[in-house]
């Protein structure tokens, strides 16, 4: 509860009303509620006092109690309705007390007077701008409740109502019901309205002579149905109707709000489908059209029309983030489209400035767009480097909400790929500490990205960088990551280890300082229940270790590990057999010191027999690998 300072006399009278709600005598409680009703009518101060003093939860309790008389319940609803009539703060408090589910539950009661009071109160609450209307039906549970109560069958006929308003509301309702809901969407595609399929009704509503609001909402419905898997992405109602309709919504002729919604919906529609992305990229100059989203407020509006300027300013952020989102979606798969996007006027500059905008939404969308474009080798090599996008990206990583961090760090991973010219300056900017701190995040996505970036960084890096990574991360953290519950984190950590343990001198150096822990971790992973990929990666690490000069001994002296290698050479999975054989092959390689002893020891342990058997393997790679290894003995 909040700390409140009310004059004592006011509190006293108000307190009295609240106290009476707790009277053991139901009759007195009823009278108390009625008196309270009379006291609050038209008295905002009294309303605020009662709310502060905790009248609302008690009223709700009484309203929900089955033991309360229907008269009492109705009076409670009336008082709540009266409280809702006050300031916006009152409504917020009521909503915070979960008044809505209680009132909705009240609608199931057979008492009409009570229902009326509940409806009145709900109405007051919902016509207020502070109440998010989505409270009614956005969660999957709400969708399901409405679905189970026959919302679809009852609302569908309203789509062909003669009244535009009714048609529109029914349409909006469907758009909310279908959103990310497979069950609803699957049902919708089979619904007939006046012997016509619902999708066809929606298509008709998207006709170009229909009101824009209707076109847009109908396009949303079809988009959601498509994303929920109820309509194929190559269905003509998506390709030839919904997509073009949404592109039209992005045109300069539309209102700013419509352009925002159109772009966001379109981005959502084509996100998973490269074919739709390709079609959209050539539809009505969409890529160029989106460039206009960045021109608000325009210099003209600033001078000529204050009202317009205000309007433009209000929508400028929304427009920019919508455009970034759509660019991100457009460029997520196709290299040509990415090229087209980066070649759009000032595109890279816009992304760069978007990364440092005050609005989190814009920053997030901008980094998403950058991430999408960063999947292009060509762009990484050219425009990304030319515009030094790593700088704002690094800045963004310093202090941002997790959502932004996830995208930014993921983009950074791409920028740290070995062919990226940005890799060098990023390394110099001291990114390692930052990435290491990411690996300690609670969010698995951030941990993955952090370790992934380090892995990319360590790839073919010089000894100095590798040393820095190991130092900054700390062995403790490294091994903590090796037992991370998220298998992606584990995979990337193993990848990092593998990259650290590349060239021979590096292997020996790392193993001389951390050999014991690494061998321990490897043993643990090989013993644990992990996926084939994880085990393969681990065996590859062993193979790298086996390639070292001094590091070899860590394996040769570890009978436990050798037994495990033997086990995996006979495993049913070829990949694991291959990795294990590779490891042995490194151990018995002829030209190295002490190869003879190792060969002898391994022969004793029965590896030759296994290798011999593997030369008969059906997998040609495995067969070759085994033969090469056998040759070491013959030489």
């Amino acid at each position, binding site marked *: 509860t909040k700390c409140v300072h009310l004059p004592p006399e006011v509190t006293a009278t108000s307190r009295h009303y609240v106290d009476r709600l707790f009277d053991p005598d139901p009759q007195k409680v009823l009278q108390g509620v009625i008196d309270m009703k009379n006291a609050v009518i038209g008295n905002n101060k009294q309303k605020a006092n009662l709310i502060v003093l905790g009248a609302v939860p008690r009223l709700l309790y009484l309203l929900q109690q089955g033991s309360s008389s229907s008269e009492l319940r109705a009076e409670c609803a009336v008082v709540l309705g009266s409280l809702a009539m006050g300031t916006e703060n009152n409504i917020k408090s009521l909503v915070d007390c979960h008044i809505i589910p209680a009132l909705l539950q009240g609608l199931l009661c057979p008492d009409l007077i009570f229902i009326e009071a509940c409806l009145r109160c709900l109405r007051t609450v919902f016509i207020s701008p502070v109440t998010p209307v989505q409270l009614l039906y956005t969660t999957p549970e709400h969708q399901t409740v409405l679905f189970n109560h026959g919302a679809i069958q009852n609302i569908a006929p309203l789509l062909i109502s003669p009244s535009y308003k009714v048609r529109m509301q029914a349409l909006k309702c469907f758009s909310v019901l279908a959103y990310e809901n497979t069950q609803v969407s699957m049902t919708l595609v089979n619904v007939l309205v006046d012997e016509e399929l619902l999708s066809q009704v929606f298509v008709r509503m998207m006709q170009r002579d229909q009101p824009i609001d209707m076109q847009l909402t109908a396009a949303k419905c079809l988009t959601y149905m498509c994303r929920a898997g109820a309509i194929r992405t190559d269905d003509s109602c998506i390709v*030839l109707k919904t997509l*073009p309709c949404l592109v039209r919504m992005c045109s300069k002729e539309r209102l700013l709000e419509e352009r925002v919604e159109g772009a966001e919906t379109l981005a959502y529609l084509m996100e998973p489908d490269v074919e739709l992305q390709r079609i959209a990229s050539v539809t009505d100059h969409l890529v160029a059209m989106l460039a206009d989203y960045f021109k608000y407020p325009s210099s003209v509006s600033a001078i000529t029309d204050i009202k317009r300027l205000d309007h433009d300013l209000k929508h400028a952020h929304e427009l920019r983030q919508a455009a970034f989102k759509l660019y991100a979606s457009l460029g997520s798969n196709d290299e040509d489209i990415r090229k087209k996007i980066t070649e759009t006027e000032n595109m890279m500059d816009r992304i760069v400035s978007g990364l440092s905008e005050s609005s989190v939404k814009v920053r997030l969308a901008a980094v998403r767009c950058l991430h999408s474009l960063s999947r292009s080798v060509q762009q990484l090599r050219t425009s990304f480097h030319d515009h030094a996008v790593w700088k704002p990206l690094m800045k963004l990583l310093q202090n941002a909400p997790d959502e932004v961090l996830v995208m930014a760090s993921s983009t950074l991973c791409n920028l740290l790929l070995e062919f990226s010219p940005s890799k060098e300056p990023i390394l110099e900017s001291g990114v390692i500490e930052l990435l290491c701190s990411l690996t300690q995040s609670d969010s698995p996505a951030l941990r993955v990205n952090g370790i992934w970036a380090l892995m990319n960084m360590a790839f073919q890096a010089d000894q100095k960088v590798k040393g820095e990574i190991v130092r900054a991360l700390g062995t403790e953290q490294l091994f903590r990551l090796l037992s991370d519950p998220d298998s992606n984190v584990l995979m990337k950590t193993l990848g990092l280890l593998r990259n650290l343990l590349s060239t021979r001198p590096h292997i020996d150096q790392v193993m001389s300082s951390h050999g014991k822990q690494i061998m321990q971790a490897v043993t643990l992973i090989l013993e644990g229940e992990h996926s084939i990929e994880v085990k393969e990666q681990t065996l590859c690490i062993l193979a790298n270790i086996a390639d070292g000069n001094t590091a070899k001994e860590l394996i040769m002296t570890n009978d436990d590990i050798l037994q495990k290698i033997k086990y995996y050479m006979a495993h049913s999975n070829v990949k694991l057999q291959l990795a294990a054989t590779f490891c042995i092959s490194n151990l018995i390689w002829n030209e190295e010191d002490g190869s003879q002893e190792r060969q002898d020891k391994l022969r004793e342990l029965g590896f030759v027999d296994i290798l011999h058997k593997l030369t008969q393997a059906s997998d040609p790679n495995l067969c070759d690998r085994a033969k090469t290894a056998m040759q070491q003995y013959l030489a």
Partner: protein
Amino acid sequence: MQSKGNNYSKSDLHSFLGNHHSRNAVIQNQLSQGKEGGICCEDRPNIYCHGKNHKDAASVRATHPIPAACGIYYFEVKIVSKGRDGYMGIGLSAQGVNMNRLPGWDKHSYGYHGDDGHSFCSSGTGQPYGPTFTTGDVIGCCVNLINNTCFYTKNGISLGVAFTDLPPNLYPTVGLQTPGEIVDANFGQQPFVFDIEDYMSEWRAKIHGMIARFPIGERLGEWQAVLQNMVSTYLVHHGYCATATAFARATETLIQEDQTSIKNRQRIQKLVLAGRVGEAIEATQQLYPGLLEHNSNLLFMLKCRQFVEMVNGTDSEVRCFSVRSPKSQDSYPGSPSLSPRHGATNPHLHSAGADSPTCSNGVTPPNKNKSHNKYPGVSSASSSSSSSPSSVNYSESNSTDSTKSQPHSGTSNQETRCVASDSEMEIEAEHYTNGVAENSSTRIMNGTYKHQEILQAEDGSLGNGVAEDSCASRQLCGGNQAATERMIQFGRELQGLNEQLCREYGKNATHKKMLQDAFSLLAYSDPWNCPVGQQLDPMQRENICSALNSAILESQNLPKQPPLMLAVGQATECVQLMARVRSGSCSFARVDSFLH
């Protein structure tokens, strides 16, 4: 492979106007080609290419340019084969552009090329425009003549505007360059891949919105007065006395004509519509002395009608012989009501928007020789004439009036329009009569007559409203011998009148035709079921009725035509004018879509 420069068979492509408004206005568009081009159209409608390098490029283009008045023009080209290199261009070119080049390379030529996806706007260098296109793709080209832009489509997806500020009179053009390139043009004979109808619906809505939201601004009060006046004068014109009075009271406006005058006109109109033309003439002469004497054309028309009504047995001169009282026939079912009937427009006005694209395309002259057939199934025929003494003067001063009333005489059904520029006169005439019924079922006024129903009812009773109760009453002049004699006597007088008019004013073909038609009724044993029987249709009274009404109003120095109808006529004429000056939006601004 054929050698260059010979053996180019011509391909006739029937190209529909992209604008389906034009209702099957077919241009016999041929695709013609350059003299040296490596293109042949043997296997039509495929166009096949033999060329090897850019010098071998050749274009084919439609024989007729895109008519401006069609508003939106669209055609599609399917790439049957991209041939060797797929150097294909699809677009537009003006007359006189070198046909041995791909569209877009030269001045007044515009194209979208398949090999690079670039658009070429009268230039050898293209601009990045859209995707490339190749075998199996369907490329559409849409010319918007409202804003003079062009966009292309690929497989049903709009690629966005390619060209702006296009000049008029462009021809659809396809150019090919390398061997084996085959394309197939669709001017609407097959369904389009792109939903052009949807695109047109947007522009239709746009233009309608523009008209509906035309700013009135501060003249709002003025407009209200104008509108009230329009309604009021319309009501008065047709003699809706009580309604007009109520309207005037409600809107606090004044009626120009006094009540008695309105009622008089109404009475005369009722008489005409009831077929009691003789009484109507009498009443007119009594109430408006000199009117008919100065309108000999009108008088002649009335008398002709009176004769027809005598045949019908409805005119009082023959009805007095009949057993039934005249009163009982006042409201027989077949009689037209006094209410004017308005279709959306009459056939001529109707054609203004619809046929104008054809007009500007210069293919089919609009409305020429078009039958002015107001009633389905109407036909006219000639008959032998009989003589009768003339009695009425025919004055020169009435000539204007006569031309206007002619189309509405009983024989106007086969009225022939000769010159397009006459349309203004036609419109005036049409609205002047006001009782004109149209093919469309859209009606303005309440309480109007359901045209179709009447016809059906009459079909059932063999086209005679009088004969509703017995077979006998369908006999000539009600089957009464004395009445028949009176009718013949009257016919002679009518013939005489005609001769007198001829002497005074020279021969009048219209009069002669009218008279012939009327007299031919007597040549058949069952006039109601004969080739000229349509004259007996009570609906035919409406033209003469409104002609008489207008003449009376004019004699009282009142407008012979209500301003409302003038406005409709003016709007219609405006749209026609737009078509003539190549304003693309005219095809979406049809007057009848605003008449509900």
